[in-house]
């Protein structure tokens, strides 16, 4: 069971040009909005037609521009969970779930009943979608998708339309479903935490290109490009130049930093996660005096915006430092100079 995708499609101001393959796993496609994530899923589902390329699902050719094969969405058997669920507003819950079931009436009845039970929709069978809560609507959409027994599941930002407290519940629900599904699951999201919790591997889509695919641990610990680093939640990214094998110059911040890893020749950026900065008592290796530009209170942490003291202007490039409120001591103030250290082992060396 596998999926191979290799497609190009010209979109407004960039070209979607992606190639990847997936086995029976949950592959996340991470990307900022407008990077072509949804378009990729739509091409695989057959809703949109790529300009060129080839899509193969479980040895079945879904699309091949060279051989002029282009199966209709109906023939592809690819389950697609839409961001807004796309339930049929004029059909009841029961009818919605039954739409994709190709079976004689009695067997169909049984499948629909099973799904209604499995997704805790008992008592809702005769209601219309607009009479349901957001969470219930999503369960109907999931039940509808699974009732057709798809060979591939594609989830397009499945949690984005839900309230915070519902997101967690639904995530658990989806986890249970995905555990039972034997096939490829593509999961499109811009939320790194969701991806980390749910997926095996992650791919980063940036301006129509897949930057790279890796298992989630190496992806989050050592992203290779600035775009990936940003998507994994790294907020401090500076352009950088190599000085020697273990030293880089962070040109935005005007700081030279020692690194544990060997600096590659093609380094373009460095990244540093905001919670890895630490206050130091004295200036030393990788410890610099920095000016506090601003202190912002977040829900569970304090965010301190730092800048190089040599640059007094208001738009000086900032370094974000995140401190948990539990350990926050309220003895900092604006314009104060503090000694801040960078851990050489935590500096991410990024290419373009």
């Amino acid at each position, binding site marked *: 069971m596998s999926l191979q995708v290799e497609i190009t499609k010209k979109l407004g101001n960039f070209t979607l040009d992606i190639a990847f393959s997936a086995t029976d796993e949950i592959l996340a496609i991470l990307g900022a909005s407008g990077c072509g994530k949804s378009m990729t899923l739509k091409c695989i589902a057959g809703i949109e037609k790529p300009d060129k390329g080839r899509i193969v699902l479980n040895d079945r050719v879904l699309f091949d521009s060279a051989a002029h094969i282009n199966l209709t969405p109906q023939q592809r058997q690819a389950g*697609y969970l839409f961001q807004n669920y*796309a339930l*049929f507003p004029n059909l009841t819950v029961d009818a919605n779930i039954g739409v994709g079931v190709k079976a004689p009436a009695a067997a169909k009845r049984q499948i629909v009943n099973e799904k209604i039970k499995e997704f805790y929709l008992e008592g809702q069978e005769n209601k219309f979608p*607009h*009479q349901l809560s957001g969470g219930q609507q999503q369960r109907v959409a999931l039940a509808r998708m699974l009732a057709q027994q798809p060979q591939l599941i594609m989830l397009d930002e499945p949690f984005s339309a839900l309230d915070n407290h519902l997101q967690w519940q639904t995530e658990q629900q989806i986890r249970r479903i995905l555990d039972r599904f034997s096939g490829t699951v593509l999961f499109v999201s811009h939320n790194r935490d969701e991806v980390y919790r749910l997926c095996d591997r992650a791919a980063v889509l940036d301006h129509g290109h897949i930057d790279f695919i890796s298992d989630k641990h190496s992806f989050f610990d050592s992203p290779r490009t600035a775009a990936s680093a940003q998507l994994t939640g790294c907020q401090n990214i500076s352009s950088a130049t190599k000085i020697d094998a273990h030293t880089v110059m962070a040109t935005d911040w005007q700081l030279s930093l020692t690194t544990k890893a060997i600096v590659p020749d093609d380094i373009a950026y460095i990244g540093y996660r905001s919670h890895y900065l630490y206050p130091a008592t004295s200036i030393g290796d990788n410890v610099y005096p920095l000016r506090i530009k601003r202190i912002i209170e977040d829900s569970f942490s304090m965010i301190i915006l730092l800048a190089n003291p040599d640059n007094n202007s208001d738009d000086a490039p900032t370094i974000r430092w995140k401190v948990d409120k539990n350990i926050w001591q309220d003895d900092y103030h604006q314009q104060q100079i503090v000694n801040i250290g960078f851990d050489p082992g935590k500096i991410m060396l990024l290419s373009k």
Partner: protein
Amino acid sequence: MQLSPLIISLQVACVATIITFFCGIAAARLVLKIKKGQNILDVLFTLPLVLPPTVMGFFLLLVFGTNNPLGQLLATFGIKVVFSLSGAIIAAATVSFPLMYRTARGAFEQLDINIIYAARTLGTSEQWIFWKLIVPLSWPGIIAGTILAFTRALGEFGATIMLAGNIPGKTQTMSVAIYTAVQAGNRQLAYQWVAIICIISLITILLMNYWSNYQKRRQQREVKL
């Protein structure tokens, strides 16, 4: 007062509306389905709305006249369009067609496209999508288009008089009867027909508004449940 113009008008308007209903929906579906030439078709389908009805009537005369292949073909089957009731129906249907086509198309375009995509990924046929999703979900728009088309067909004058003429008891509709009455200096009769047309049109529009309010209230009630 002869009642035949009222009966002829209602006959013409009803049959023309039925034709327009199906043709308008089919045309809207066709235009949204094809990938190339959408604009040309749209212009063609909208033309009867912008051209003067007499010009439309003239074109219809050209097409259905017995000097032309189509007219001759129909004549061999004993069907005569020019100066006949069927001519009045064709004229009314042609002129009211763009109203149905435009409103139906507008209603289809307003649907959430993801609903249609979702149906496709679920393996449903295009027929099913059209009849079970698109049409029911566009129902308010389709009804509005039908009513507009009906009132337009009921009041049709220019193309009708060109194609069907003004034969009392055969092709003389209410609009044509008013014209004839005024020409003959029979003000009394003209007033009567004007009053009848006004009443029918008013009732139709009132019914349409009542119906759309009812729909809105029903939706709100359902949301509250």
